[in-house]
């Protein structure tokens, strides 16, 4: 099969799956189901395209769809703040960093036109998906889940309070802040150019 045809086939299958799930969601759970299906398609479709596409830049933009889809999940799960943070940090920060990475490294021109998803890889992926979903199935039965869902009440305000309450998360919060600082300084340190390192200084014993 030619490369073009493979691309066509892949995207056609994806579109079919997306529309199919949207329709199924709408029929089964109304608007909520439709929203869920759309976000699920965004998330998983984005991930699939990210793996499939040959160019890193395209993959990175496909990953953006995944991040936005996850943000959508946060929205329908009632965590507005998380959705906002997800968009800001992942789409605005992590993705931008990845694109910098793409720009600063030379793409490998010898890479095959399309990734070869070998039998072993597919087996591994399918195996995980199957077994973890089985375990989830077992787990969901044993974990007590709420019978009725109340309206989510958490607001960004509550999260701020929880972060700064000395009886709750303040230690973890400060440590996370410290970790971020250290990680950023370390990243700058690792990535710096090190030519000046080997110029000898005076006054050395």
């Amino acid at each position, binding site marked *: 099969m030619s490369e073009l045809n493979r691309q066509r086939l892949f995207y056609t299958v994806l579109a079919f799956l997306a529309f199919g799930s949207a329709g199924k969601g709408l029929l089964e759970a109304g608007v909520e189901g439709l929203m869920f299906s759309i976000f699920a398609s965004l998330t998983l479709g984005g991930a699939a395209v990210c793996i499939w596409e040959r160019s890193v830049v395209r993959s990175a933009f496909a990953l953006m769809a995944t991040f936005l889809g996850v943000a959508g999940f946060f929205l329908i799960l009632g965590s507005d703040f998380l959705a906002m943070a997800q968009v800001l940090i992942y789409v605005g920060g992590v993705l931008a960093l990845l694109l910098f990475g793409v720009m600063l490294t030379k793409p490998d021109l010898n890479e095959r036109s399309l990734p070869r998803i070998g*039998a*072993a*890889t597919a*087996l*591994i992926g399918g*195996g*995980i998906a199957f*077994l*973890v979903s*089985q*375990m989830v199935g*077992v787990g969901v039965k044993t974990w007590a889940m709420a019978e009725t869902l109340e309206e989510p009440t958490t607001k960004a305000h509550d999260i701020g309070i929880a972060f700064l309450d*000395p*009886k*709750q*998360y*303040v*230690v*973890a919060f400060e440590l996370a802040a410290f970790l971020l600082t250290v990680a950023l300084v370390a990243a700058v340190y690792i990535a710096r150019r090190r030519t000046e*390192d*080997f110029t*000898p*200084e005076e*006054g*050395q*014993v």
Partner: protein
Amino acid sequence: MPDPESLNPLTIAQWKWLLAVPLIPLAGYVIQIFFGKHLPRKGDWLMTGGMFVVMCITVTMFFVAYGHTSVGVDGHAGSAFFAESVRPGPEGQTFSWDWLYMSRAKDAGLSLPTGLMYDGLGAAMLAVVGIVSFFVHLFSIGYMQGDRRYHIFFANISLFTFAMLGLVLSDNLLFLFIFWELMGLMSYLLIGHFAQDPTSHRIKQAAAACKKAFMTTRVGDTCLLFGMAMLYFLIPEQYNEYVAQGLIEGDTIAGSFRFTDLWSNASAIVEANHGDYPLWLTVAGLFVFGGTVGKSAQVPLHIWLPDAMEGPTPVSAMIHAATMVAAGVFLLGRTFPLMSPEALAVIAAVGAVTALFAATIGCTVYDIKGVLAYSTISQLGFMVASIGCGALGLVAGLFHMVTHAFFKACLFLSAGSVIHGCHHEQDMRKMGGLRKKMPITFACMLICTLAIAGMPLFSGFYSKDRIIAAAFGGMSLKFNGGNFAASVFLPVAACLTTFYMFRLIFMTFFGAPRDHHVDEHAHESPKNMTISLMSLAALGMLGGYVWFLHPLDLMGNHGTWFTRMVDWRTMYPGVDLTETNLKGMVGGLAHRHGTAADDLEHFYHGFNPHYTALIVSIGVLLIGVFVAAQMYLRRKWNPAKVTETLGEAYVWVENKYYVDEVVDASVIKGSKALANGQRWFDENVVDGVVLSVGRIGKGLGFLCAWIDKHIVDGIVNLVGNLTQAFGSAVRLFQTGRIQQYVSFAVAGGILVAAFHLLS
């Protein structure tokens, strides 16, 4: 037995001072690492000043704690000091946080409350760490002058101190472990200090040494992590089972890392089990001890400590005295009630072997820091062996940890002063006659040598004598291999200690100068270095027992400040060691002396191996000094001839019993060979088998197809193909490629998950 519920005599303000103790070096580190280069004098005054404040707080708080204690009468325990900030204090408030706070989990009793713990042992240790670190900082100002990474050095050593202070203050095993790991990292950075300096001529050695230290202690850390996991999960399991059976009264418990919970829950289990330790608790105790073996450089993981001398000398002083290696012994002190008599026997044996083993090597080394490094290993062996000898030995071993911190810090700093004065010459054969050129250094070193040798009236005597007494006492309580090894090996090791320390003194400071180049340059060190030396030497002399305050009891028979602060009967609130830990140890006693196990206290009081030990330790001291003087001072016996007489044995010892070579040949080469072997096996055997299985499967498929084409053909072909695919996947093993390792890890995870689902 103190009531565990009223165990927080400290006010909130005092707790805040204690909290400030680790936070000051931490804050100093942050300032120093970012701005140190631009501060005047590269910020050394900031770090040293901060450590001075820390020292003042720790010493003041030590005396606060000391004021809460009282002397016991007639061998009975006095009142102890124990404070835990998680409990409400005199103001009715607690001083604690939740690590990993979760509102729901907290309702279910699953939170990890974290606070400070300040008991007699912690108070002593904290003061020691504060004092020693301050003087090491002060010393470093002179010693590290002109170093290229001067400010980084101060930042790192400050964080190193922070880790140790935090470790001493933490009230749970999890935090102890966090600081423990932090200390491992900092030791890596500090030992490898010169590895980052492109102009250093020992860059390769430093890089190798810090890597070795990190990897070797990692083995022990992994053991500790296993032990922690076992304690966290298995203690509640067994406890709740006993509650269900009615053997323990009260509620069921959840897992906990807090020391007080671990002690009381474990001893409740042991008491419910008629004084016998369950096997898993022995195993868990040995895993925890594995952490000590790594960190405190016991055989066979001692190999990193001699190499750690590649770091700057102040770092060696810190590692060998107050921080790194003391942490392992401190951990034993914190987890002693979890150790079963069997585990203690192993601990005693390992410690005794280490003490003797390192002492023999110490006699053959010519590097001045090398002698001290092996002496540290040997002294650590003393401590560990002593803790393995039971409750009295526990106090003696911890006491030795404290006194050893003082005199070993002083010895290392003196060695640093010698090295500094001799222009970074470390070989003792090139020194000699330095006594007149460096009088202060000589005096300090001599005092501490007498202390480490166990000369009466010097701090080391009071602890080492107690260790040997405890070894003899443990032997007469119950015979086991560990006690036997301790009571035989430790006196010999003590004799060798005296010998190699006086050998060092005689070779370095006495006799005629051997190398004129070195001798011409030799000079006394600057004032801030000698002040540190003299202060630590004073502590090395009086840090164990301030004998001139007790003129009627110069031998310290009625206890020292340490035995008043740390008493095995009261140091673990809610735990009766005679019911649990010691019950197994006194089995032999009851048999021989016709006394009941409860009379242990009586026994220790009545039969005092103290005097035997006194004679033995002074005897070995004299022998060691005599031999050293004959060989190296008066030159009556020629060391070369002695070496010749010893022959092969000397070569073995001089090569450190070939442990490094054995590790290299067995572990490192072995794992490489194993990997290659696996690869060969995969490529030749497994592939062949798998492929032939595939072929057989295929063949079977055709056979079946021939018999029943329409039903099984597809399935069997699939099996054949899958097996072939598996065969080609297996061929990819051992390539060093990260992605494949990920695949294998994931495949393993799938297998585990499948097993979990199917079972």
